[in-house]
């Protein structure tokens, strides 16, 4: 229908330890600002942004979760419907990197099997305080079959790229899936209404 204002809709969920800069990444991307002194997220935050790639309108529903342990149960419930997960850590914080396997376990447990996961090392503007080397992170990402990217929400480095790359990947993934099961061609986001969005049910 002509009234559709997008061609694809994807749900992206950001996860990672508390204080690694998930909210700042989202804010930078959706609002173009870097909020200094951003407080801890309570539960979940929601943002929406529509981008255009190769003439196609892609609506990104971004769920920014709280990193704090106490909200774990509600944040987990959001993994399930995600098309993509952005697993974030802080390159100046060894601890946040060491927690990654734990996060992967959570993903394994709660998220959809088809989910695309991107590993993001944030805060590269603080390069002098780096604790996790790029090589190490890349190796880790490779071993876990994840894409890897380093960003800075503050300097706006790679933030745009992160989301746009992800969107591209999601599109191609969606197309592939559409080819595989073209009988039931419920492309993610290509439905008529928002209520059609059971795009995670590929199985």
């Amino acid at each position, binding site marked *: *229908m002509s*009234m559709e*204002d997008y061609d694809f809709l994807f749900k992206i969920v950001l996860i990672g330890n508390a204080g690694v800069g998930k909210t700042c990444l989202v804010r930078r991307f959706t609002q173009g600002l870097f909020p200094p002194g951003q*407080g801890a*997220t*309570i*539960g*979940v*935050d*929601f*943002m*929406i942004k529509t981008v255009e790639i190769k003439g196609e309108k892609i609506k990104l*529903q971004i*769920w920014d979760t*709280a990193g704090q*342990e*106490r*909200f*774990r*149960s*509600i944040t*987990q*419930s*959001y993994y*399930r*419907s995600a098309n993509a997960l952005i697993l974030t850590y802080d390159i100046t914080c060894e601890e946040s990197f060491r927690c990654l396997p734990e996060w992967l376990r959570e993903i394994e447990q709660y998220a959809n099997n088809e989910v695309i996961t991107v590993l993001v090392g944030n805060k590269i503007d603080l390069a002098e305080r780096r604790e996790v080397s790029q090589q190490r992170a890349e190796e880790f990402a490779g071993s876990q079959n994840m894409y890897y990217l380093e960003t800075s929400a503050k300097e706006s480095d790679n933030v745009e790229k992160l989301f746009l790359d992800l969107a591209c990947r999601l599109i191609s993934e969606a197309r592939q899936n559409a080819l595989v099961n073209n009988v039931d061609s419920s492309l993610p986001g290509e439905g008529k*209404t*928002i*209520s*059609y*969005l*059971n795009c995670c049910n590929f199985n």
Partner: protein
Amino acid sequence: MEKLTFYALSAPEKLDRIGAYLSERLSRDVSRHRYGYVCIAMEALDQLLMACHCQSINLFVESFLKMVAKLLESEKPNLQILGTNSFVKFANIEEDTPSYHRSYDFFVSRFSEMCHSSYEDMEIRTKIRMAGIKGLQGVVRKTVNDELQANIWDPQHMDKIVPSLLYNLQQVEETESRSPSPLQNTEKEKEIPAELAERCLRELLGRAAYGNIKNAIKPVLMHLDNHSLWEPKVFAIRCFKIIMYSIQPQHSHLVIQQLLSHLDANSKSAATVRAGIVEVLSEAAVIAATGSVGPTVLEVFNTLLRQLRLSIDYELTGSYDSAVNIGTKIIKEHEERMFQEAVIKTIGSFASTLPAYQRSEVMLFIMGKVPLPSMHHPMEHGKAGESRNRLIQIMLLKSLLQVSLGFQCSNMLTALPSSFLDPLLSPTLMEDAELRLFVLEILVSLIDRHDSRHKFSSISTVPDIAVLKLKVDKCSRQDTLFMKKHSQQLYRHIYLSCNDPCNVQTHYEALYALLVMISIELANEEVVVDLIRLVLAVQDLALSNDDNLPAYNRCALHALCAAYLNLISQLTTVPAFCQHIHEVIEMRQKDGSYLLPEDIFVEKPRWSKSADHIETELLFLQSKVSEVLGGSGYNSDRLSTPYVPQLTDEDRLSKRKSIGETMSLQVEVESRNSPEKEEKAPAEEITFETLKKAIVDSVAVEEQERERRRQVVEKFQKAPFEEIAAHCGARASLLQSKLNQIFELTIRPPPSPSGTITAAYGQSQNHSIPVYEMKFPDLCVY
């Protein structure tokens, strides 16, 4: 607008087109930030929705929902709230046509997110959160009864909805001190998210069906875990009160089960957490009382007792056994203690919700868990094992006490079967002062069916018992039967409990209470006589001092006797009896106030060291008592027979074992101060005495004596206990008079009555050892 409505109504088939157009306009306006138009468009959609109750609404709803979603996607709080309000209006419409392909995934997610809003402006934040809650309420209303909908009860939705509500519920407690007056509260009610969240939660739970409870409760437990809300537990309790009161009563046992399994899952968590869960459990159990707790009762107790044992293990070993990562946690003893107390309290509150028959079942069940040496439970040996056993015994008895509190059984016989009484009265539980006290208290609270215990919490000689306003019912037939069957056991227990040097005031108080309870709850004439005999025997115990009790204990026993006899005399209302007792008490007040409870059972007891020589005027005399009571139709023959405790099976067993022991002991232990001696039951004492005498006389006699004893013991062991008891009871007075006769005549051969006892008796007669024979009746009869 009116025109539009009219048009839509007259041409319903156009409705979807109208909707589509409006929504398109609206989305354009949103993106162009023309919020005035947005509001108008939404208003129009709302009104159309309200106006059109026709079939074709379905398609219109599609565009309507899309618009709401659109508004919700916006960053502007006003639009979010606008969207929510429309959604709520929509949710309140009853739809009669099924909608197959509607999904509320996004709404659930978004509303849940709004519930967690952290908008800078407090006022707006509250508004957003309120909107979120309302939205969730709307979703719930809309979907809960619609079987075609994506199941709202699925964990993926519940995991969002429930924590969001709880989070808001919990906020009040953190931000507000709950101080505003109720009047203010009602005014502001609409403004507080927590209130709304609570109502929403209640509504949600009220609609939960059997299969959905689990999904709804699980997130609650998770939330409480994650936010570590078990510890202050106020919130947890509040949550579960809400849950218990709002779910359908027939499902309440499901909640209990969930809590129990959660407790099991948390058995390695900190004690405070477990204590919190247990505390919540106890609160919930009380509420669940209205609905039946169902067949899982024993399972509940099993879990609780298992937790109790685990906790004792933790306390003793100082670590959670399979400590993998958690091992670093230090176990705090007092926290474990608190947890244990909480479990016991829970057991009590659980039990109080049960009907009588289940209660006695539960008591039996707990009793079966008490580690006793003779039972099939293996005792753990070694020092650690012993202290563990003792702790478990204490904890379980405490639980039993909790269960028995307020338990009013109509039928003692079924409430206290011998399978329960026997282990309870077993000697293992008598050795330790603390355990002994628990056993006494349990007995008291079981027998006390008119809640008169508190009237006898302190021992005193009340001149007129009318002030106590006692309710004394006629002893029912079942109770009489009960006493016939178990009275000897009870008396024996009381007697032996009296004879313990470690007793303190509380023990005497419990003993007093037990005596009183038996007399007001279970007494018929026979029992009264027996009780008086028992008390007089206790007096003799204090007087003769065979066991070398400290002076305090002896005075205490005298005081106990005085208090009890004072009471029973007034209960029997035999004037002569009352008079005798009264006289003695008056004498004591004059010359021996240390023999009265008023002096002994106070904070600083005054007693006399000279408890050895007490004037006869200060004593209650058996002969006198039997005389006055005999005059009023009581069995005076029986009364004049001194009470001597009966042997139980276990005692006889231990006695057989101890014969050899006593032999060697008696040579060395002339003074009877050794602790082993004191612990021995009076029955064994006779053994000692007789053996000593026998040895003095001749070795040969001793040999014969032992041989004879073995025969007696065997006889008693082979015959069933009841038979022997009945036999002895019936013959006691007859035999006594016969014996007296014989002793007077000494040498004349007895007329030999039939029966086992006489056989043994006849045998010993041939030996003609008068000193020994004086002791013999005791041994023979009991």
